[in-house]
């Protein structure tokens, strides 16, 4: 198995030197995110999110299933993430790489275990029928910070998705076609956003937000924080890497709080714009 090509020594030194003076190759400030672009597809729950050249596609479908006996009152959510070799030549099929494991686990924690979606509201008939929401995440191209992009795409897709209206009379379940009755949005508790910060071996280099692919490769540690606009942390993940002073960690939390508020505004307005332009027919 060939190793992915590492950056050359002059390239490495140049990037480190520039970052030390708080300059980034793409001209961003250290704590500036690439502005996310959200494109909605024709279907509800089909979102393409891009951060610079990183592109992720999230797609949701829901179907009725019988719930597992241990949780008769809760709907199910499953997340499938596909890191194909299309995204970058560093991925290949076979045994999941460390990065792939981290990304799938983080997606699971941010989108599912943080209780973003109210699972009890997905129950139609206790023990008989619940909604099974399947979120599929395809990474189309990776140029750094795939995790944040995938989390954003996933959460926006969940907010964008509408499930068909259901009527229960006795034991009989009627699913109304979207053309008969307006479909319902999923009931969400909160919307977590994920932010990844990169740290460098030289302690005098300040941390940076939303690393590009090159910055990610050269970094000596990543810290991912998922939080919502209400200042609630959902996931904090710094697995090893360069050691940080406790104050630095807390300072990063404050930055993330700010960024979450900004990102929340962008997402809400994008969703509103899309909804305004969408014609949902109800007879």
């Amino acid at each position: 198995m060939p190793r992915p090509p590492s950056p050359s020594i002059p390239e490495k030194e140049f990037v480190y030197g520039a970052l030390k003076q708080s300059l980034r190759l793409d001209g961003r400030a250290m704590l500036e995110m690439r502005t996310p672009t959200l494109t909605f597809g024709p279907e509800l729950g089909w979102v393409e999110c891009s951060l610079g050249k990183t592109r992720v596609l999230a797609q949701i479908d829901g179907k009725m299933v019988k719930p597992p006996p241990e949780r008769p009152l809760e709907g199910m959510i499953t997340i499938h993430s596909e890191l194909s070799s299309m995204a970058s030549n560093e991925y290949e099929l076979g045994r999941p790489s460390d990065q792939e494991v981290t990304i799938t686990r983080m997606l699971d924690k941010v989108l599912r275990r943080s209780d973003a979606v109210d699972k009890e509201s997905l129950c139609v008939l206790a023990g008989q029928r619940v909604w099974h929401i399947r979120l599929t995440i395809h990474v189309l191209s990776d140029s750094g910070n795939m995790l944040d992009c995938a989390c954003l795409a996933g959460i926006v897709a969940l907010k964008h998705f509408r499930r068909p209206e259901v009527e229960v009379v006795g034991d009989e379940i009627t699913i109304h076609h979207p053309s008969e009755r307006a479909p319902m949005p999923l009931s969400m508790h909160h919307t977590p956003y994920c932010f990844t910060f990169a740290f460098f071996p030289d302690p005098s280099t300040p941390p940076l937000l939303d690393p590009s692919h090159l910055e990610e490769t050269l970094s000596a540690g990543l810290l991912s924080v998922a939080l919502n606009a209400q200042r609630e942390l959902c996931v904090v993940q710094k697995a090893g890497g360069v050691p940080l002073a406790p104050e630095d960690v807390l300072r990063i939390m404050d930055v993330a709080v700010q960024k979450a508020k900004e990102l929340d505004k962008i997402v809400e307005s994008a969703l509103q714009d899309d909804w305004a332009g969408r014609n949902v027919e109800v007879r």
Partner: protein
Amino acid sequence: MSSRVEILNDGGFRSDGRKQYELRDITIDLSQQGTADGSAIITHGLTQVMVTVFGPREAKMRSQTLHDRAVLNVEMSVAPFSTGERRKRSRADRRILELSAAIESTFEPVVQTSLYPRSQIDIYIHVLQQDGGLLQACINATTLALITAGVPLLDFVCAVSGGVHSTEPLLDLTTLEENDLPNLTVAVMPRTRKVTLVTMETRLHVERFRDIFELACEAGQTIHKEMKRAVKDRTVALVGAMDAGAKHPSGDPDRDLTMEDR
């Protein structure tokens, strides 16, 4: 968060009789395990983890070596009898893979890998009993096993878990508490007071996080004292044994043991 068991009662005691900031009993066993170069068994209350370290040694797979430093290889296995419900977890379980990847990257900057180019250090973690604080026990045991193996480290890595019950921070959680409370694990390097690992998976307000995070950093120092004492005791015993075998005991046996205290 509905719970049948009171996490913290009116008297300020937890379900196992501890106070809020009280850690569970720690026992450390650094005795030799088979042919391993270093080994440690650590017990935090009812959580027990055994770690064996082999190496630095020649890598089994040549292609995996790096020309300028040693490679750490962490493999973790969870005994099926370690939990209340007997269940076999495969080695490729995502949770286990994630834990071992976290441990590997925690120790990568701490172990002085550049001293052993083209070699490999194998760390095998066996989880014998689980009662909360699994990651914490794994990290502490790995530090001790690396020390007994004589692998040069920049510092100890001491991990501790913490949680928040409404607004009250708690330290060193049991499974019961872990299931009900937002919890985090912090690993600190006591000498520089820097943090190498932070993980949290449940919803918690930023202000609450600040409290428990700072508290956990403090608690790391206490764990460090325990770990250091165990390492010192072992070294004293080893030197004592060497002296008993030597024909001419060379003066004060404590002479080589003066580690600076901090």
